[in-house]
């Protein structure tokens, strides 16, 4: 073989490939690091979502307790109303029959209705908090899964970078050999 334009073309190509190899490795490392950072961010976000989910669950418990309190107060109020009405009937000398009895019965029904309404409202609020907790839990799980995926992608990015740099190194070596072969 002989020295020619190709000789130094191969030499220049080899140097270019070497730099490309270093660049590819460096770039892949940085990309992987970026993905790791994203994963960390996702995990941190997931932890916050877990925390928010816990807080929502606590609110659900708070709502249960609040509903029970309200129902207890409603029952006491109803009892006190009916008791008042009975005393009034009795004070008026009415027998607990006829209209008096209808009034007492209606009061009893209104009390029951209020009791039921309080209970249903409490359930509705509980359900809202539960949904909120579940939602945050799901977001946390999603963030964790995303982090795991990003970690995996980061690893693959590193591998891909290594492979790309290996390819560039191999290309550089082959071009170097080609250059020598032309001498």
């Amino acid at each position, binding site marked *: 073989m*002989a*020295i*020619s*334009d*190709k*000789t*130094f*073309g191969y*030499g*220049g*190509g*080899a*140097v*270019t490939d*070497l*730099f*490309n190899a*270093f*660049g*590819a490795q*460096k*770039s*892949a490392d*940085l*990309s992987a690091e*970026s993905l790791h*950072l*994203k994963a*960390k*961010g*996702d995990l*941190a*976000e*997931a*932890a*916050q*979502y877990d*925390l*928010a989910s816990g*807080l*929502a669950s*606590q*609110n*659900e418990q*708070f*709502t249960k*307790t*609040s509903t029970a*309190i*309200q129902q207890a*107060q409603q029952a006491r109020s109803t009892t*006190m109303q009916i008791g008042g009405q009975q005393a*009034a009937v009795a*004070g008026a000398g009415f027998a607990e029959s006829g209209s008096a009895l209808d009034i007492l019965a209606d009061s009893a029904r209104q009390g029951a209705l209020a009791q039921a309404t309080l209970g249903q409202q409490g359930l509705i*609020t509980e359900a809202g908090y539960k949904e*909120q907790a579940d939602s*945050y839990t799901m*977001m946390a799980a999603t*963030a964790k899964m995303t982090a795991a995926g990003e970690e995996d992608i980061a690893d693959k990015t590193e591998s891909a970078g290594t492979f790309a740099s290996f390819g560039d190194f191999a290309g550089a070596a082959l071009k170097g050999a080609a250059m020598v072969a*032309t001498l």
Partner: protein
Amino acid sequence: MAGNIQPFDTGALSLRPTEEGINTVAGNARRVGAFYNQGAGALEGLAASEKNAFGSAGRAIGSGIQAAGDAVVSKIDHDEISHGGAVASDMFVNLEKQWQDTLKTADPNDKSVAAKFKETVLQPALDKFAENFTTEKSQAFADGIVNRYRQHFDTKTAADQMELAAVATKQNATKIINNLSSAVYTDPSSLDTAIDTLKHSAGSIVDSSPVLDAVTGAKVKSELNQKGVEALVKSAVTGMIEKNPNINLDAIQKKYGDYINGGELKMFQKAAERQAKSDALQAKQAAILQRQQADQEMHAGSNKVINDNVSIDQQTGRPMINPNFYKQTLDLARKNPDAPSAASTVRTMLDWAESQQNKELKAVDDPAVVKPLTDNLFSPDKPTTTIDLMRARAKGQISDHTFTVMNGLVKELQETPLKGPIYTNTMKAAHSALVLTGVGIPGKDDKGEQNYALFVQHFIPQYLAATRAGTLPANALDVNDPKSMISQAMEPFKRTVTQRIADYTATLGGGSTTAARKVGDVPVPPALGGIASLQYNPTTRQWRDQTSGIVYDSAGNPVTK
């Protein structure tokens, strides 16, 4: 009473859970998540920023590295490609040369030559070349060069080897053609057989080649057949013309018209005409040559007759003639009737013999005759011969002594010729040193000419003897070196300027003022003045020529026992 009793009334009592706490906690959860998400968002933002920061830095640094690297690579690309271009051109030249060198020594019929070259030379060179390139673009450049060179040499080596094989095949066939051409030239009647033989042989050579492909083989075969037969026909016609210039060229054209065109037929007609003229000229030349050969035989025969029948009396220095001399001389003329010089040679020999019988004839050297005889000793065209000496002696123009000495030189120079510009120029220089010429006043230097002739007669035997013995000094002919052989030989014959002028003017009749020559205190007889090396015996009062050994009396006459 009863009506007056008042019951205790507490009023409406109830518990009222509050949601303040829940709401507060839930609000806290949301705020905590929001805080974490805020932090995570910041981290996500930081992650994105970190990733962007690293990516941006990496891209910036990477693109910087690539830009810097691209610049470096571009520089290396340019350097290597620039240098590689020059190297590639050198490599191409070298490879071409190596391939050509390979082809020079390759077996044309070895089909693996190209493959071996590519394996052992081309590929290693290309590999080594490609090793020098390190970048993709420069390697692409090198690959381009390598591919081009490989493709080039694939094509070239295959083509060259094919061509080499074709050339080799043609060469082999050409030998056959040449042999057959020689045969039909000698015997034109064998032309048809030769043509059949050529076609059969050429076809077999081509077909048996392991390298030639079918197309190239057919091409080579066709070329050999056409050109080969043309050569045979032309060679046969040439042979016919040479044997008989009056051949029937029309009949030849009718039978072998495919191999002779109109222009060639005209050429043959002219050749026939030239051959006719040539035959006539050759006959004439043959006659001349015959006469020349007869002359040479006459000359050789005369030498033999002289050598066999003439001897020198050591006491008198005079020639002694065997009676067979006359008969054999006359036989020479009879045996060489075609020799133009026969009559004059025989006459000269007989005149000379007759002059030897005349004891009263006391010939002295005529410088005008001795000079050309001496000069021509070294002539490559017309050297002095024994006959020339005999002719001069018969006319009384040279003495017996001069005849004897110069005849000895002629014989020695026949055995060891000294001809050519070196000897000619050297002897001219010696002549200038010994003979006064061109002085601008009337007269001639007979004494100098006489001294020069004596110098030659004295020096040449010494020189030839040293030559044969292998002891000749390198400076033997250096006339400027006073210690050389020639300078030493010239020394006894040199004269002072006064003597030379006196001798020169003496020929005008004023008499010589030169003192008589003496050996010791004894004056040399005038008849012996031409002998350079004389020894005097005071007891017998006789003189002895140290060169020839001839003994003279006090008057200068040869002493006979």
